[in-house]
C-alpha cells in the first residue's frame, strides 16, 4: 500500500529545487554536509520484528498453503530487503523526532494503542510512502523534502497507518488467493484451456477483468485509508486541512508539464579549455515522432481502470464535505518546526547519496548538478560529481555503464533527458576530459578536501593507465 503512485517522480526534484532554493532558503543550504549515522541496533530490531511477523503469518495458514506462502514470502522479501539496506534512516535524533509525531497520532486514537508499526524515513528519492503490510512503514525522503509542514507529514503517516490498521494488504492477499482457488475461477481456466481457437484473446480479456477488479479494490482501499487518516488526525492537534493541501501537492507532482529546467548541460559542461560538443546531445530522428503518448497502447478508460490510486482530485472530492466542515483550529507544527526544515535540506543530501549507493549514477549526477547550479559553492556537489564521473569512466571501460544510466523518457525533465543522452554518447576519453576540466574549475573550492583529493588521484590513474 502506498500513498500515491507518482508517474514522473523525477519532476519532484525540479520543483523541489525551486522550492528549496527560494530566497529564504538559499543562504541556508550548507556547502558541506555530514551524513546521518544510523542506529544499526534499531534497524536489526526492526528486521527481527519483520522476521517474527512473517513466521506468524506462515503459521497462521490453514488452506491454500502454497498460494499464501508465495505472497507472504514476497511481502517479507520486500521488508527484509528494506531493513537490510542503507535506505532506512534510523539516526537517533531523526527517529526521535519522527516517533514524537507518530506518538501524537497513537495517543489521539485508542484503537492504535499497542500497534507494532515500525515507521521510519527512507532515503529513497522518489516521492512516495509505503506500508509493506507487516508493520513496516516508510516515508521517502523524496516525498518529505516536498512537504510544507508537519501536519502534511501527519496525514501521510496516518494514511499508511490506516492501511496497516485496516489490514488492507492482508485482505487483498486473502481476496486474491480465494478468488484463484474458487470453483468459478477454476472452471473458467479449465474452459479456456480446452479452447482451440481464440483462446489467448479470451484469456487476455479474463485476466484483464481480474486486473480491473483488483485495481478497483486498491482504489477503494486508498479512499478508505484517506478517510481513516482524516479521522486519525482529529484529536492530534494538527490542522486536518493539511490533507487537502497535501493531496493538491501530490497532484502537482503528478503533472510533469509545469516544471522548468534548472540547468543546461551545454553550459554546465562547457569549459574554456574544453568546449561542449553539440554531438553529445544532438537530436536524432525517431520512430513515430508524431505519435502521442496516449495513442501508444491503452485507451484512457483502460488506463484509468488499471490505476491503483484514484486521482488526487477525486480523493479531495470524496472528502470535500469534511473539509468544508473543518475549522482551521489545528496547528501546522507541534513538535519542531526548525528541525522539520532542517531535515528537508538534509534529506536532499541523503537521497542524493542513496542514489549513488544504489548505482543510479545518472540520477546522482543530476541531483548534484542541480545542487551545484543553484549553489556554486557547494563542496559536496563538486566532490560527488567528480566521483560520479570517475565511476562512470570505470564502468564504461568495462562495458557496464548502461546498468547505471536511466533511459530517456518523455516524462523526465528536458535537462535530465539531455544529461542521459550526453552520458550515453560521451566517449571514454571524453569522460576523462570533462572530469578533468570540471575538477579544475572548482579546484580552489575543494582543494583541501581529502575525499576530493582521492578522486583526483583516481582521475590521474585513469589518464596514465
Amino acid at each position, binding site marked *: 500500500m502506498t500513498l500515491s503512485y507518482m508517474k514522473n517522480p523525477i519532476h519532484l526534484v525540479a520543483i523541489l529545487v525551486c522550492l528549496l532554493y527560494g530566497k529564504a532558503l538559499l543562504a541556508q543550504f550548507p556547502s558541506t554536509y555530514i551524513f546521518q549515522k544510523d542506529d544499526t541496533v534499531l534497524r536489526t530490531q526492526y528486521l527481527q520484528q519483520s522476521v517474527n511477523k512473517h513466521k506468524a503469518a506462515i503459521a497462521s495458514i490453514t488452506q491454500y498453503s502454497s498460494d499464501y506462502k508465495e505472497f507472504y514470502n514476497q511481502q517479507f522479501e*520486500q521488508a527484509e530487503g528494506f531493513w537490510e539496506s542503507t535506505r532506512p534512516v534510523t539516526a537517533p535524533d531523526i527517529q526521535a523526532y519522527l516517533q514524537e509525531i507518530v506518538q501524537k497520532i497513537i495517543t489521539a486514537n485508542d484503537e492504535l494503542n499497542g500497534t507494532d508499526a515500525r515507521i521510519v524515513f527512507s532515503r529513497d528519492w522518489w516521492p512516495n510512502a509505503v506500508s509493506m503490510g507487516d508493520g513496516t512503514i516508510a516515508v521517502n525522503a523524496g516525498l518529505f523534502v516536498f512537504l510544507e509542514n508537519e501536519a502534511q507529514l501527519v496525514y501521510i503517516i496516518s494514511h499508511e497507518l490506516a492501511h496497516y490498521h485496516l489490514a488492507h494488504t492482508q485482505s487483498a492477499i486473502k481476496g486474491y488467493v480465494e478468488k484463484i482457488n474458487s470453483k468459478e475461477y477454476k472452471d473458467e481456466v479449465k474452459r479456456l484451456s480446452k479452447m482451440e481457437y481464440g483462446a489467448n484473446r479470451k*484469456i487476455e480479456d479474463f485476466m484483464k477483468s481480474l486486473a480491473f477488479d483488483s485495481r478497483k479494490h486498491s482504489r477503494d482501499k486508498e479512499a478508505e485509508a484517506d478517510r481513516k487518516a482524516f479521522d486519525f488526525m482529529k484529536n492530534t492537534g494538527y490542522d486536518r486541512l493539511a490533507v487537502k493541501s497535501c493531496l493538491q501537492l501530490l497532484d502537482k507532482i503528478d503533472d510533469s508539464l509545469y516544471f522548468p529546467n534548472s540547468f543546461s548541460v551545454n553550459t554546465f559542461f562547457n569549459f574554456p579549455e574544453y568546449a561542449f560538443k553539440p554531438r553529445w546531445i544532438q537530436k536524432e530522428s525517431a520512430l513515430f515522432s508524431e505519435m502521442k503518448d496516449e495513442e*501508444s497502447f491503452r485507451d484512457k478508460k483502460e488506463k484509468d481502470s488499471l490505476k491503483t490510486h484514484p486521482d488526487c482530485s477525486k480523493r479531495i472530492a470524496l472528502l470535500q464535505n469534511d473539509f468544508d466542515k473543518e475549522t482551521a483550529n489545528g496547528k501546522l507544527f507541534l513538535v519542531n518546526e526548525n528541525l522539520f526544515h532542517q531535515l528537508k535540506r538534509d534529506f536532499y543530501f541523503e537521497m542524493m547519496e542513496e542514489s549513488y549507493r544504489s548505482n543510479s549514477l545518472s540520477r546522482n549526477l543530476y541531483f548534484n548538478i542541480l545542487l551545484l547550479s543553484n549553489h556554486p559553492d557547494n563542496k559536496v556537489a563538486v566532490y560527488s560529481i567528480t566521483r560520479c564521473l570517475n565511476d562512470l569512466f570505470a564502468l564504461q571501460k568495462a562495458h557496464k555503464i548502461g546498468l547505471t544510466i536511466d533511459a530517456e*523518457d518523455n516524462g523526465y525533465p528536458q535537462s535530465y533527458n539531455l544529461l542521459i543522452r550526453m552520458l550515453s554518447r560521451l566517449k571514454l576519453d571524453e569522460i576523462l576530459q570533462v572530469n578533468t576540466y570540471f575538477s579544475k574549475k572548482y579546484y580552489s573550492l575543494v582543494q583541501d578536501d581529502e575525499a576530493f583529493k582521492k578522486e583526483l588521484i583516481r582521475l590521474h590513474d585513469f589518464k596514465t593507465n
Partner: protein
Amino acid sequence: MKRLRKNLSDYMISKQINYPKPDYMKKHLLMMALAIMSAFVLVAQKSTLENVYKLSMRNSGVIKEGTEVKGYFLFFASDKIDKNSNEYTLQIIDNNLKKLKEIKFVDSKHVAILESSFNGTDLIFLLYNDDENTFEYQVYGADGKKKYTYNRILTKKEDRYLKMTYLANNGDDEDTYKGIYPIEGLGFISNMPSREDKDYTFQLDFFSTQKRKQWTYIPTLGGKKFIGDYLGTANGVVYISILKYSGAFDKKPESVIVGLSLENGKQLFEVSTESKQLFYPSSMFTLADGKSYMFGEYFDPSGNIAKDKSVGFAFWSMNEKGKIESEKYCSWSLDMSKFIDVSAKGKIDDFGFMFLHNMVQTADGSIYAIGEGYKKVGSALGIAAKVLSAGRTSMSTTKMKITDMILLNFDKDFNIKGAKIYEKNSNNIMIPDGMDFSSTPLLGKMIKYNFGGFDYSYTQVTKDATSFTVCYSDYERSKDYKGSTFNAITYTEGKITTDKINTKSDATSSIILPAQQGQVLILDYYKKAKRLDLHIEKLN
C-alpha cells in the same frame, strides 16, 4: 560464421521474467518484458494459466535508417483464430527499449516478417507468406498509424531464390540479403533478385510514403539474364548497376549503370561502365557537399568482370543524365602498395582481396573506406568429395577464407592517404561448384549477400560526421579467453581507437545487437536464474 547471431526468439518464451523493480527502478531493460508484458504480468500470477497462454515468436529484428539503429521489432503469433489463420502482434520498440506501439492483425498462419526499414519519417515492414508466395509491404507513418499496404505475388523463381538465400540464412538482415533501402522522407526501394540455375533477373520496386504510389522496374532489353544491384538514389534518380548476359552461355557480361526516374520508374539512361577503365560499382555514397559517388573495383578496359582479377578500385560521379563527371582510379600495384604490401592483382599479402563494405566522409573532409579481406583456398573436403564421387559432387573444391578488416583513408579527391589492417581470426566459406572461376568482385558479392560470410556487421556515423564506428565479430582463442568477441574500430575527430567485448561472461550466453550510434545492445542470459538482462553499452 554467425558467431554472435542467435534468434532472439530462443529467449522470448521463457516464463520467468525479471521485471524492472519499481522500488529501485533498475536499468535492467528487458526486451522480453517489453515484448510480452501484458500477457505475462497476468500469467505470472497464476501458474495454471501458463500452459494455456502461449505466444509463438516468429521473428525479431533491428529497424534502421541507413546505418542508424532506430529501434527493434518483435513479431509473434498471439492467438490461433482458426485452422488457417493466426492473430499476430507486432511490437515496435525504440532504441531506448521503450515500447512504442503494438499492432495486432489477423493473417494466414504462414506469415513472417522478412525485413523492416525506416526512412526518417515512415516505417515499412515486409511480410512474406510462404504458402501463397506473396509479399506485403506495410507502411506506418510518424503518427504510428498504418498509411499504406502494397502487395505483390512472387514468381516461382523469386520464391525459390528467396528460399535458397535469405531464408536459408535464417533471415539475418545484416549480412545476407538486404532488399529494402530507405529514401529519406520519400519512400523505399525494394530489390528482389530471382535466379534459377543459370536464369538470372531481378525486380526493383518503389513504394512511396508520401502518397499511395508504386512502380516496378524489370530489366528486359538487350540481354537474356541480368544481375542487378541497387546503388543509391540522388537528385531524383535511382542508380542501378547491371551485368547483362546476352545468353545462357555468355561468359563475358556487359556492365552498365541504369538510371531510373524516382517519380515514375521510367528509364532515364543506360551507360556502359567501360570508360578509361572497366568499372564494376558495388555501392554509392554521398559526400558532405551533396555529391554522390559510386565505388567499386575496376578491370582493364578489355577485361571480363565475371572472370578477371580486378586492377584496383574506383570512384565515379555521375549526373542525373548519366554523364560521367569524374573518374578516379586507385590501383593495387601503384597506389595501395605505398601503404600495404600488395601483389600486382590486388591481392594483399595474407589479407587476400578486399571487399569494400562502406564509405564514410568525416567532418574534416577525409574519406574512409571500410573493407574486409577474402581469398580462395583449396578445400580438402571438396577435393576429397570430388575424388570419391568421380567428379559428380556439387561441392566445390574451393573454399573462401575470410581474413582481416581494413580501413583506408583518402583525401577529398580520393587519393589514398593511409591504410591499416586490423587482424582477426579467419573463417572459411565453402562455395558451390561452378563458382571456382568467378571473378573476385563477384565472389565478394556472393559472400556478402548470398552466404553472409563476412564478419563485418555495420558502420554507424554521427550526424555531424565527427565520429564513426565500424563493428565486426571475431573469435578469440587465447589462454585468457576463448570465445566470440564483438569488435569495434572507432574514429573520433582524427583519432582511431579499437574496442572488444567478450560475449562470454558470467552470463550463460550473451548476444550483442546494434544500437544507437556508437552503442550496442547487450543481452545477457542467465540460464540458472532464467533471467535476461538487457543493457545498452557504449563502444570505447
